[in-house]
């Protein structure tokens, strides 16, 4: 199911402000691609253009092409709602729906999109929670509110919710930045398992994390505050962290920057 993402000439705007400028890259299927770079360089904005969440922000606008295998996400007859079913997203702060139980949270994407039998839902919810390594911790309290879980559990609940709709690509926007090291480790292990089935793109500020979980790493940078962010280079993670081809990447990774 995992699909290749092929971005060409993509720029994103907030009103008149250009946030990212002319980005082209390829994200391989069944791999983890990490985006690193200083704050404000447009990593998250770029991530949000990959499932058309950017245009949800008032004034958000995108130019360029994002090919998912052979379909342009920004083609003229493409439904953004359908795109988001194909390209799932996990956010920085865990955001389970407060009115719903753990079960309902995981089933939300399915229930809100169509009709499923109770037995089908049970099966998908169990499979998703197991996929998110959360099943053993919550199987006895599926009817309790999701907001009662710890932060790390909530984030895994959000991952379970995202993979329950069986997307082709999973986007993660700093999924561990609000979590402690143990929960972070749990989620990093999970990412390693999920890449067998999904194409994963993860934004992170933690370079060790990028080095640990990703196969490929993209470094973003911006010339100055207020300037649009640019893709500096994209390469195998090993190469980026040992022998990057651009000086700015090396400066950033070795901490000589900003």
């Amino acid at each position: 199911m995992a699909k290749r993402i092929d971005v060409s000439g993509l720029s994103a705007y907030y009103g008149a402000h250009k946030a990212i400028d002319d980005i082209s890259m390829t994200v391989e299927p069944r791999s983890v691609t990490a985006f690193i770079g200083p704050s404000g360089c447009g990593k998250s904005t770029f991530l949000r253009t990959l499932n058309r969440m950017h245009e949800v922000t008032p004034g958000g606008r995108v130019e360029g092409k994002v090919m998912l295998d052979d379909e342009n996400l920004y083609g003229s007859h493409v439904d953004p709602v359908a795109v988001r079913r194909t390209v799932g997203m996990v956010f920085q702060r865990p955001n389970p729906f407060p009115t719903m139980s753990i079960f309902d949270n995981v089933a939300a994407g399915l229930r809100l999109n169509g009709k499923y039998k109770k037995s089908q839902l049970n099966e998908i919810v169990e499979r998703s929670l197991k996929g998110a390594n959360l099943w053993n911790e919550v199987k006895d309290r599926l009817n309790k509110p999701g907001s009662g879980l710890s932060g790390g559990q909530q984030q895994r609940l959000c991952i379970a919710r995202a993979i329950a709709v069986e997307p082709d690509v999973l986007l993660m926007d700093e999924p561990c930045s609000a979590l402690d090291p143990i929960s972070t480790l749990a989620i990093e292990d999970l990412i390693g398992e999920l890449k067998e089935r999904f194409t994963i793109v993860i934004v992170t500020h933690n370079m060790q994390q990028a080095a640990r979980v990703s196969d490929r790493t993209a470094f973003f940078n911006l010339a100055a505050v207020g300037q649009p962010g640019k893709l500096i280079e994209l390469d195998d993670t090993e190469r980026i962290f040992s022998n990057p081809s651009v000086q700015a990447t090396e400066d950033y990774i070795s901490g000589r920057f900003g």
Partner: protein
Amino acid sequence: MSHAIQDRPVQTAVRHDPLRHARLPRWSPLAIAAGSIAAGVGLGLAAGWHSRIQWGLLAALFFVLGTYAVTAKVEGSRQAKDRVATSLVWVCFILAVIPLLSLAWVTISKGLETLDPYFLSHSMNGVLDAEVGGGIYHALLGTIEQVLLATLIAAPIGLLTAVYLVEYGRGKLAQAVTFFVDVMTGVPSIVAGLFILATWNLMLGFGPSGFAGAMALAILMMPVVVRSTEEMLKLVPNELREASLALGVPKWRTILKVVLPTAIGGITTGVMLAVARITGETAPVLLLVFGTKLINENPFEGAQASLPLYVYEQYAVGTDAAISRAWAAALVLIAFVMILNLVARGIARWKAPKTGR
């Protein structure tokens, strides 16, 4: 040497308060309050003021000034300011509560004289003004029907308007709607009544009815519902909307299944408070529902009664029996609004997003 001194500007030493200082005993605010009440009453008696309110205001003034003087003397000026702020809060709280309690007390004590099951279950049919007896069944029925109809009209329109303003509204139209909602909040109830009178009754030629009154009440209710719902919807974190959209849920379903359920407690409270507000309206009811002594169960045909209007009519009659009926009806009206409020709070608590483990 002198050169070196010039180089280093003289530093002002930063003063630190000692960690320990004299403190007033814990009972001192009470003592100051007792003292100032005694002083207020004493001075009031000495000056021959008749009004207890003047005594009370004098005592309040003494309390604030006395607190400041005593604390400044013993504890220092920062603590004195702190205590004055506290005492002002207390004085204002008491000033606000006294009229409220006295209103409740007077209404309850006078209302209970006449209030009994007979009063609640009978109309004024055939009861003479000076005669004891009669009841408010017709008025209670009228109020419930009119308020229900008004809510059925105003709540959906107000709710959808608020959803439009928060979730969809951008640009000129949304600004215009917000502006006119604000203007409508300030429309006097008699104007709303006259508007319906002019259009529904005079232009379209309908007679007085509960429904006509309900339309005027709906006009008064709508802006309150829009405003409160709008505030509640704004409180729903954007992250929840994004989480739902990112699952591939269409926007309308996101609003229906995620945003509204999250805010439903607050929305219900807002609607109930709006209902409470219109329940006590007299002017539009006087113009449009007209009032009657008889039971009229049909709100769409013929004059009806209503509780505030009943209170007004009975008071205008002026006989002892009628005024007693007016107090009892006022008590029922207050109780009705209070029950609505309690129901609203119950629903809000029941529906609020759960955080428990």
